[in-house]
Every structure is written in structure tokens, then in C-alpha cells.
């Protein structure tokens, strides 16, 4: 899952990015409102973590513009403005959740998972797909009732597929979900991970649509 983090403070931004990466998210980080709008133009992000007091363009303005354009990306506000009025204003401007500084990294990750879950229409925290069961919080996977060991990238890739079953995803789209800015993308890595997943889940689990990309077919 790829997140956009907008935070002007370098220390906080750096720590949050580091922490969320450890939790298996792909994180891009920008430090002002204009850069945030530029990045959001790509529409590759699954969630936006937004600080409010930003240089160049205030966080709330960024959020309002975003919603005005009809963008439905889940937004979590991360701010030191902690009055009820501020929170109400933030939520009413289109935010889905509001976390006040200083916050806990684990709580931030949990709230992000909750927002993503809601976005994909799931009620239970675990993703269930046929005989496959993924827990995004603990990264535990069971297949046919047995625990399955997946690397962080494999887990992320599987999560992307299961989030949109039946949808064909191109290699570029998958790369975008897996790699943040500045992360080296070696050629064929997506294929390598898909190969690994097929080996663990069965050859037919991920289908190849020639010339277009890959998909996990819907199960009835």
C-alpha cells in the first residue's frame, strides 16, 4: 500500500516514514502543500497522511481542493491542533481520521490499516480470500490453515492484488504500489515476487494477462 506523507518537520517526517516502512507501507514524503498537490496528481496513493500547518499551502486547503476535485482517497490528519473545534473542522473538511501530535507510531499504523480496510469495504481486520488469510497488522499469512512465510515485499504485493480481485494490474502499477520515491526498482523484481507467490500459493493463483499485466481472479 502506497501512502503520501505530508509533514513539514524533517525530524517527524523522517521518523514517520521510517516507522511506516517498517510496518510494510510504501511511503512518499513531501514537506509542503504545493508539493503535496503535485504528488496527489498521480493518483497512485492509497492513503494520505496530512499535517495541517504547512508552508506554501495549508493542509486544510490541500484537503478541501482534493475533495472538491472529487478525489476519494482516505485522509488521516496528523496535527498539533488539538481543540475539538480544530478536529471538527478537519473532519468536516473531508478528513477520515484525525490524530493529534504527539502520537504513537503503532496507533498511526493501526489507524491507517483501519482506513484502508474501510476503503476496501472489509469489516474484519484480516483479509480472507478463499483458503488464504492475511493479517495486515501482524503480517501473518495462513494458507489452507497452515502458516505461510512471506517477505515484506511479497506480502505487500499480495495485499495489492487481494485489494482488487479481478482487476488487471500492469507491472508499472504494481511497481508504483511497491516502491516509494528514491527506492531502487530493479528490473524484473515484480516478476520475481510474482514467481515467489505462485510457488507458495499455486501457479494459478496469479493469472498472467498477456500484454496487459497480472490479476488475481475473483472467487465465487
Amino acid at each position, binding site marked *: 500500500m502506497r501512502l503520501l506523507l505530508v509533514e513539514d518537520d*524533517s*525530524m*517527524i517526517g523522517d*521518523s514517520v516514514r521510517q516507522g511506516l516502512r517498517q510496518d510494510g507501507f510504501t511511503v512518499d514524503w513531501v*514537506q*509542503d502543500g504545493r508539493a503535496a498537490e503535485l504528488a496527489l496528481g498521480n493518483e497512485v496513493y492509497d492513503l494520505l497522511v496530512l499535517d495541517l500547518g504547512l508552508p506554501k499551502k495549508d493542509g486544510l486547503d490541500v484537503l478541501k481542493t482534493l475533495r472538491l476535485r472529487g478525489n476519494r482517497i482516505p485522509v488521516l490528519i496528523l496535527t*498539533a491542533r488539538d481543540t475539538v473545534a480544530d478536529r471538527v473542522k478537519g473532519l468536516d473538511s473531508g478528513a477520515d481520521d484525525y490524530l493529534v*501530535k504527539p502520537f504513537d*507510531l*503503532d496507533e498511526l499504523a493501526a489507524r491507517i490499516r483501519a482506513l484502508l480496510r474501510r476503503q476496501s469495504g472489509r469489516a474484519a481486520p484480516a483479509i480472507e480470500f478463499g483458503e488464504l488469510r492475511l493479517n495486515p497488522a501482524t503480517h501473518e499469512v495462513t494458507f489452507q490453515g497452515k502458516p505461510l512465510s512471506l517477505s515484506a515485499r511479497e506480502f505487500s504485493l499480495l495485499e495489492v492484488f487481494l485489494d482488487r480481485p479481478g482487476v488487471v494490474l500492469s507491472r508499472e502499477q504494481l511497481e508504483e504500489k511497491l516502491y516509494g520515491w528514491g527506492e531502487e526498482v530493479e528490473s524484473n523484481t515484480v516478476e520475481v515476487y510474482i514467481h515467489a507467490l505462485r510457488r507458495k500459493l499455486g501457479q494459478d493463483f496469479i493469472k498472467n494477462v498477456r500484454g496487459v499485466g497480472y490479476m488475481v481472479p475473483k472467487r465465487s
Partner: protein
Amino acid sequence: MTSIRRQLLLWLFIGLSLSTVVAAFAVYARAREEARDLFDYQLQQMAAAFPHEGFGPITAPFPDESGMGDVVVVQIWGENGVQLYLSRPGSPAPQSMDIGFSTVSTPDGSWRIFSALVGNSVVQVSQPMSVREELAASMALRTMLPLLITLPLLIVLIWITVGRGLKPLNEVASAVSRRSADALQPLPDDRLPAEVKPLVAALNDLLLRLGRALSSQRSFIADAAHELRTPLTAVKLQIQLAERAVTDAERASAFAQLKGGTERAIHLVAQLLTLARNEPEAAGRPFTPVDLTDVARQVVAEQASIAEARKVQLGLSSAAPVPIMGDPEALRTMLSNLVINAIHYSPSGGAVDVEANTQNGQACLVVTDTGPGIPAAERQRVFDRFYRYEAASVTGSGLGLAIVRKVAERHRASVELGAGTDGRGLKATVRFPKV
């Protein structure tokens, strides 16, 4: 405690009582005088009414014509000093040797006597003085009576008037006491008497200044708490990352970050303290003679290693002493903040120049850098505490220029931000007032 009301009432009552007593005495004295004239005239008339041929032996009492028979005693003396007649036998009326009016004191009181020679006899008409005094007293009383009756009315009137006169003061007092410490709205000053208006105006002025000081304090605390939250949030996150670290390398890097975060929080607290110490309300150290060149030399020496580390050329370009009166500690802090800002915003290979000089008779401290400068539109706002211009590149407390301004204000100096030499970079000038 002195009370205007008590003082007013006390002196008004004393004055009123004294004037009443004095008036009563004056009226009584006047009445007595009138009574004397009246009765003396009557005594004289009575004496003159006797026949001039003299008297034979008189046995029958005179008819009491004046109606004052009970208080007038008539005596007639023969030429040989024999009492021919006494209108009231057994009366204690004394005898006077003088012809005409005289006053004689007896153990039974004073008598007024008129003696006249009638033929060979002496006619003496006497009257006790008490009669006159009674009359005078009753006349005086009658004159004073309306005054005495109106006196209580007057007292009530004074009481009410004083009370009403002082009512605005009481109203102001209760309006002040109704004010809570955090609601310093001005007192209503309409319909106030001219004497109370200046007081209320002064009070309102004080309330306004208090309110301003209070709200600036409050916003300072709010700002400070808010700003402290940022470095503390970073520290908290860094601690969590350190906890999560698995390898030694990860842990070392997490602790290095944690150290940086903690140092930032410490720096912010130190800057907040400096700012609070330079508030005009804080009793600062007394001003002493200071040489600005000396201050500049110290600051350049202090910051030389930081400049070196960032590959910025830092130098002092003046040597002549620039003496002023000031707080050397605060001036050093102020210049340090300007120099640190200049170093931080200068690119690698840039130069920061510090100078103390005299321009148009005004002592000046000038710091010039070759950084990106500050657009004219932002040059005022950057002095606001916690305001950061283009925060992304440099992490500071956001208090540096606020401290500069506070110290400058304490020295009644102005701070100007302008473009550096050749229109590039930033030139900060602190201009001290002419001596």
C-alpha cells in the same frame, strides 16, 4: 481608612451645628438688646408718668397701668432718705444711688433700675433682669424655631446628596469588583460625573494594557506549548524507532536521531527562556557601557566553528569601538541569533559579514549574508515568534528573530531587513537610538 462620605458628612454636620449654635446666640443677643431697649423705655416712661409736684404720704397702691405690675417694683424716696412708697412690700428690689439707669446685682438676681428726681423725691422703677432674659430667650426661640424644625430635613438632605454624589464612585467600585481576572472589558464611562471620568478613563486604559499583556502572555504560552509539541513528537517517534530497532546499526542510527531531537527540544526551551527574559516587563539587568565592536568580535569567535563546519566564511569587518549603553548579555544573544540565521541560510561557500559602525550618529550592528534573502512581503512576518519562512530547508526554533526584536525593543533600537550587497542575500541592520 479615610472615607470621602464619612469626611463629608462629619464636616457638614460639624459646620451645620456650629452655624446653628452661632446663629442662635446671635439671635438671642439681638433679642436681649431689643428687650433691654424696650423695657428701659417702659421704665423711663413709668418714671416720667409720676407728677412733678412731689408726693405726700401715699397709702394706696398705684393702678397697674403697664400690666407689668408683677414684675415692676416702684419705690419712692423722700428727700431725707425716707422710703415714702414701695409698690410691693417685701419685694427684694434693691436700691440704687445713681440717677438714670443702673443694673444692680442682688443675691436673688440682677435688677434693672431707673431712678429719676421728681420734685424732692426720688422715684425708682426696678425690674428683675430675668424677665428680660426670658423674653429675649422666647423671642430668640421663636426666631430659631423654623431653623430648628428644618434642621433634620437639612440633615436628611445632606445625607442623601452626599450618598448620591458618591454613587458613581460606588458603581465604578462594584463594576471593577465584578470584573474577573480574565475578563478585562472596559468599564462603562457614559453618564459619569466629570470628577470620576478621569479615574474611569485611567482604569480603562490600565485594563486595556493589562488585557493586552495578558493575551500576549496567553498566546505566548499557547504558542510555546504548541511548538514544544513538535520536537517532543519527534522525540517520541524516535524513541519508538529505537525500540523497534533489531540490529546494532539500526539502534545506533535511531539513537543518533533521538539525540538530535532532544537537542532541538532543549534549544527551543533555551530560546523560549531567552525570549521571556527579554520581555519589557521582565526586570532586566541595568544598562552598562558596551562596545558593539567588542560584542561583534565575541559573537564571531563563538560561531566561527559552526560557520567552518558549514563551509561559510564568517568575518568581522570593523575595528573601531562603537560605544553604547546596553545589556551586553542580551546584545550578544541578539547578534548570535542574527549570525546563526545568516550561517544557516547561506549556501556552502557563502559568506557572512558582521559589522559594528556609526551611521548618521546612530550606532549600528549589521549582518550581511549571501543566502537566498527574504522577499520584501515576508520581512515583517519573520519577526513573529514561531513564524518560519520556507521552513523546509532549515529546522530552527522559529524564535531567533523574535528574540532579536525583543532585545532591540529593550534597547529602543530598530531592526531592518533588506537585500544584501548587489541585491543578493540578506542584510540585517540593528539601529540604536542617537545618544
